């Protein structure tokens, strides 16, 4: 009977551990991606006009420094994807009273 209980306990602990790891580790967003998204959030708060006035690469450099790999907005590109790079996507909706959405993709090194 004790062996049965032991087996049940081991199975229970394994199930709980798998659930916890699934929630905390495997399903979690990598911390560096969270950090990158916060930096893009800062860019959005700092400037409505950057993608329309050519200032977006400079703004991205201020946000990411040497971690910046590339910036793509509309049909423009700054930098290049090389090595391990992951993308953060955002949309600038317009500026100064004009609705004119532009997709922005920022490549960031970990």
């Amino acid at each position, binding site marked *: 009977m004790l062996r049965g209980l032991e087996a049940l*306990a*081991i199975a229970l602990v394994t199930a709980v551990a798998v659930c916890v790891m699934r929630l905390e580790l495997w399903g979690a967003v990598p911390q560096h991606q969270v950090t990158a998204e916060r930096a893009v959030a800062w860019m959005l708060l700092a400037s409505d006009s950057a993608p329309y006035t050519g200032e977006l690469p400079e703004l991205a450099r201020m946000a990411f420094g040497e971690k910046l790999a590339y910036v793509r907005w509309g049909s423009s590109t700054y930098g290049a994807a090389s090595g391990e790079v992951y993308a*953060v*996507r*955002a949309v600038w*909706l317009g*500026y100064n009273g004009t*609705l004119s*959405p532009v997709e922005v993709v920022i490549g960031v090194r970990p």
Partner: protein
Amino acid sequence: MSGHRGQLLVIATAVLAISLIAALRLSRAPEPRASRLLGCLQAAELIHAARLCWSMPGGCTPARMEAIASALLSYNESLKLMLRPFSYTIYSSLAPGRGLYSITYMVQVEQPYEVRFEAEWSCYEAGRYVKVVGGRELLFTRYRLHYEHRYSAPMWGTITTYPKLWDPRGLADLEYLGGGDWTAGVPAGGYALEDEYGIEVRVGGA
């Protein structure tokens, strides 16, 4: 006997592990951590949308905000922005010597939270002077003006910024004093300045 003790030890360890994990889960903050961590970019998109709406000529109206919100949500799928459904309230208040534009969002998640954009100013008269403009003498009123933006979200609390002001018509005499404070000399009888985002700031007038 030692076998029994070993088995009891395993059971005790299992019970302890389950108890510890349960206690840790109970002690965590109730707000889902994933949405809070992922919400910075989404909240910033909402602030940006609100700022754009108020920068439109004549200010933010429900129709304009609807168009902006629709545009934003249309990118939700293609860019995987992970925006949650939201509702919003547009509010403005204009009175002699003060003004407020705001949009408050309620983001519909397991535990709804608020994101708010506010642009607010206050001013008082600090003197009058005559200025020659285009060969004509015009009466100008000098105001002491304070202007600020506030961006609020649970992810970062409240961020206060002091956008630059300017005069599209080039008549005003503006001097920045720091901390959102300005002196503004404008034609008497009320005048509209703009901030760097294109939001109108009415100074003086009835």
